[in-house]
């Protein structure tokens, strides 16, 4: 086990009231594994990632309970929520690195690309400025950036979004982390660039054996990259399991709805059907009672789903789902 999250809750204090962004979330990532967290915006997936990094903006956010246990390179384990800030800084950017959604906004406008990559190396590996710059150039080259010496001297405003994301990956990979957290790394990019970035992350993973926590709302991306999938809804984990299994036999109606809403290429004689989940995700300020998904669920039953919060049930085959009617709707969830 590389990282295990236990009963994590994150709360945001807003002017309109407290929002439960993440509610007793538990999951684990094995060494070398790629886990995708899937969910709509507001489902708590990005906040969970920020919590691992210790970067939940406070105020207004606050981690109210849980443990995030990380196994370090030297074999020791550390609860990231209780580690001293010095120890946390030693792990961040070094053993756990993060790639963000908007690469151009995530890079500092006032330093060159080379300087920004070299900064991690100087900090964590105590390299000299010249050595770190040389390594940064090599890093850029290995990520398929042409003329890396010249690029290293460029500023972020001089490059494209796709290249900026490569730079972000180079920055994250600089210290060969054991866990890479990628928060919607392809969402802001063109489709053709998306594929390149995905294959780049896969290549890095193969080279270094790191684990990847991939956060996305795009199931097409999940199918390409993830070993396992965790589906989040209204701050909770609602279904989890091996990618193939989740795609072929989802057990939670929300997961089925997500899968059905992916546009597919269809053959001549079958019409293109694009189904959408009715309604909108609930406001984190007021999650529905019972199962948070019940107002949008076609299988919801009055007097059951709107009163009893469903437990996460282990289905024994590596899959777990959160639905009260799980036994009644086997296989027919679409």
């Amino acid at each position: 086990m590389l990282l295990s999250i236990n009963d994590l809750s994150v709360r945001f204090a807003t002017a309109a009231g407290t929002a439960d962004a993440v509610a007793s979330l538990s999951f684990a990532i094995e060494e070398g594994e790629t886990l995708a967290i899937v969910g709509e915006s507001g489902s708590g997936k990005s906040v969970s990632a920020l919590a691992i990094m210790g970067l939940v903006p406070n105020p207004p956010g606050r981690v109210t309970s849980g443990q995030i246990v990380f196994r370090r390179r030297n074999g020791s384990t550390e609860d990231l929520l209780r580690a001293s800030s010095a120890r946390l800084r030693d792990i961040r950017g070094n053993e756990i690195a993060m790639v963000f959604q908007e690469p151009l906004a995530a890079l500092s406008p006032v330093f060159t690309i080379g300087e920004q990559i070299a900064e991690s190396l100087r900090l964590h590996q105590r390299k000299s400025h010249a050595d770190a710059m040389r390594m940064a150039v090599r890093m850029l080259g290995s990520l398929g950036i042409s003329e890396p010496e010249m690029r290293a001297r460029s500023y972020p405003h001089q490059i494209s979004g796709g290249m900026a994301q490569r730079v972000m990956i180079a920055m994250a990979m600089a210290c060969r982390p054991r866990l890479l957290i990628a928060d919607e790394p392809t969402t802001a990019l063109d489709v053709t660039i998306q594929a390149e970035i995905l294959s780049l992350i896969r290549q890095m993973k193969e080279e270094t054996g790191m684990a990847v926590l991939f956060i996305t709302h795009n199931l097409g991306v999940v199918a390409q990259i993830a070993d396992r999938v965790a589906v989040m809804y209204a701050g909770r984990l609602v279904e989890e399991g091996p990618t193939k299994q989740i795609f072929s036999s989802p057990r939670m109606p929300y997961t089925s709805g997500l899968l059905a809403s992916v546009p597919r290429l269809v053959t001549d004689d079958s019409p293109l059907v694009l189904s959408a989940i009715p309604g909108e995700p609930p406001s984190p300020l007021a999650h529905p009672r019972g199962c948070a998904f019940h107002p949008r669920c076609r299988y919801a039953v009055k007097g059951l789903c709107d009163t009893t919060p469903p437990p996460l049930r282990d289905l024994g085959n590596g899959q777990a789902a959160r639905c009260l009617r799980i036994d009644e709707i086997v296989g027919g969830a679409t």
Partner: protein
Amino acid sequence: MTGFLFARLLRAIVTLWAVLTLVFVLIHATGNPIAVLAPEQMDAAQRAALAAALGLNKPLLVQYGVFMGGVLHGNLGVSYYSNTPAMPLLLSRVPVTLELVGLAIGTAVAIGMPFGVFAALHPDSLADRALRGLSVLGASVPTFFVGIVLIFVFSVLTNVLPASGGGNIVHFIMPAITLAFFRIAFFTRLVRSSLLDSLSQQYVRTARAKGLSEAMVVLKHALRPAALPLVTVFGLQFGQLFAGTVITETIFALPGMNRMALEALFRLDYPIILSYVLVAAGMFVFINLVTDVLYGVIDPRVGHAR
């Protein structure tokens, strides 16, 4: 860079020419210096002779030509009262004003910057709210009032600082504080809001994600982008103060450039007034140029270096 500087220099020259022309027209439209200069018992012939001696009898356009020719040679005429060349006379007063302004801005930055950074790092803390309250006070109290209170406390009551005169650094303490008072408050609020904005940017989160210490995050990654609006305002404030210390120089009887200009204005001493305008405008243009160059140094996106 040289192309940029050349273009800016050209613009500076045009600006100075426009300012001088405007002021030349304005002061000739507002009064006749002979009426102020000549003793009452002077008769019409004597007055005409005086006007002729000063070149004031010529058509306005000719006077303008003579004046502009003089400007090109660095000669703005002779003061009507002291009978010495106007420009050197005014320039002799510039160091006092420069020292005063430098001390005032320096004090305001030295106090306002750390206050602002502290307030931005602890938003809505007790200290932040106290600083905000103080800065409203600082922004609302007029300069002359601050000056008079300081004189009352430190000269009249305790006699630790001289109330007037120049030459010694001690004479500058109270005037500089007077001028800095409002600007400490102003800079505190400016640094606070600018840094708060920068701290909420995504690249600051990236810097934290790298594992940098909080001090490095603030000093290296947040403060530099936040400095851009500060440089603009510091520059503007310097320019404004350079030509805006009349009240303070008068209250503390400092022999500065602005007091000389005020006296010249009352006496319609054209050469002094025009010299003053040239120096003040020149300073403003120079500061703007420095600000623009600094912009390029701080933020590569401005990039006139390339």
